[in-house]
């Protein structure tokens, strides 16, 4: 990812999203619709979980919903940029509002 694009993403995230509070209930729906097929528990059938278990080797959970260190910024970064075989998600798939809600759902309750 290019540095200008990263800065743009962070700027958008901070100016438009952080100022708002995400709807965790909708975030859960977004998670179940778009994320759980790769990130649900069970590494054998869920490649996102499998990859994260490989990376963290027990230091952190491979299941996104069990993570205690996710932030809306980090969630937005991966959703809009993808990582390795996970492609980015377009705004017709996960809108900015849905992304805000997803970030709220996956972040520890503040």
């Amino acid at each position, binding site marked *: 990812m290019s540095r200008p*694009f990263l800065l*743009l*993403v962070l700027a*958008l995230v901070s100016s438009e999203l952080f100022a708002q509070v995400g709807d965790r209930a909708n975030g859960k729906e977004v998670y179940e619709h778009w994320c759980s*097929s*790769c990130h649900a528990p*069970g590494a*054998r*059938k*869920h*490649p996102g979980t*499998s*990859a994260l278990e*490989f*990376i963290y080797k027990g230091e952190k959970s491979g299941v996104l919903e069990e993570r205690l260190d996710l932030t809306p910024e980090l969630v937005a970064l991966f959703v*809009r940029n*993808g990582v*390795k*075989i996970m*492609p*980015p*998600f*377009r*705004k*017709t*798939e996960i809108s900015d509002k849905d992304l805000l809600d997803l970030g709220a759902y996956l972040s520890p309750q503040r």
Partner: protein
Amino acid sequence: MRYPPGVSQSDFDRAVRQFESSIGAEWVFTDEADVDLYRDAYSPLWGEEEEKIPSIALAPQSAEEVQSLMAICNEFQIPVYPVSTGKNLGYGGSAPVLTGSVVLDLKRMNRIIEVNEENAFALVEPGVSYFDLYNYIQEKGLDLWIDCPDPGWGSLIGNSLDHGVGYTVNPYRDHFEAHCGMEVVLADGDIVRTGMGALPNAETWQQYRWGYGPWMDGLFAQSNFGVVTKMGFWLSPAPEAFRSGSVQVMRYNDVHELVRITAKMMYSGILNSNAGVQSPMQFAIGQNPEMHERYERANEEDIRILDEFARSNNTPFWSSQFKFYGPREIVDSSWEYVKRQFADIDGVRYQDQESLNFPMPYEELMQTADENHLGVPSMSVFQLGNRSNFNPAGTNGHLGFSPVVPMTGEAVLESNKVLGRVLREMGGNTVFNVPPYSYHQRTFTILVGFTVTRDADTNRKTREIFRELVKVAAEHGWGEYRTHTAFMDDCAAAYSFNDNALLRLQQTLKDAIDPRGIISAGRYGIWPKHIRDTEGKGVATINVSKEKEGDSNV
């Protein structure tokens, strides 16, 4: 904002204002950060000058909005590239063939218009994914199965139009074959319905596919003649049971009988799902230079020694897996019947595998060997190329070279050797090499997979090997069934009978149906007249002229 090739900035600015008033500014993506989300995440051209990048993206919500957008594009001769869910990863994703095209993102058109349990069909829009239809059927408790490809997030319509395939039974597993009836918006914004859909108040649009007069549907698959906005699909009544098992034969030359009988069982309808043929000896032979040399040469003496090598490993030379779907008595007796057909092969072995009864709870379905073979969409296939102990760095995607070969033992041996030789001589980044498999009813398809990286030199080498495979396969009479956008001209060029007569016919149709050449320029090698090679010398020169055009205007 990026601009498309061949369109003046003032015209494009006017068109964008019209797009915004047609579908709302919110759904006209012009910021580069938003448009970059449409880059092909698995592009083998990533970051290179040749990478195919759109100018802007439009996201209509209805067929009427598509009509309105197409009329505007037609007026200003703006190249437009429709995608359904944009998840055709490995085949181009949501990026166009012609850089600077406007992506028409149909993801918001996600209505499941009808699912009919009694006559077992669905009518859907392009944004409906396999997950969406599966969940709908489960929520309503309908006694129906879908047939899904490996990843479940793709579009039924997009996959079918690209000749995608799945794993349950005929005819549902060939997704274009399982469709019935389309609604299509043409380049000028006109809208047509095919088959019985042309009859106002049609009551059999999704049951009788031929309609009246010439059947048009084939024109809209692997092509660029229209934008499909609705499509019907036949569904299977949920079967009562599933059975799988494998037949294993011990000697090199047993492959001929193994495949001959498999084909006969398929053509007789006893086997009504996919089957393939693989060699359990492949790894051992690959690790042994002497045996590998003998396998390549395969004279009488070599075969005798290879057979002895397999015997000393107590490993069958070949095996095939068979699957049966239907009532319990029928799947059990079909498997017994199939086993008996192989009984004359000396030393044949059988292995019973899964035996399942339906309905099964979702959690149990996800514990089976492969839920996709049971009509359950998932993302399991993305384990391939994932970061793991085998591949700590992971990959940035994949693409596949997939020629169609005859369902004969001879073709199994020949394709294995010919393609294997190219891969070995050229080196490269092959990640998997799937043995011959009957993705379609009467042929085997080979699937040579490549990893895609973010390193241009590695990707360049992959493209070089891919193109050599296309060329060598064509010399043997094997052509691709489907390909990535980076290789569409190469694969089209291989279908060259009578000075590319088929492509010339497709170009004639293109010029008639889309005279201003705005839809999906270059898709499956079909270029519009105004940027086609003017001397009509074939696709190689079309490629050159297209690149010049793109460079000078974008």
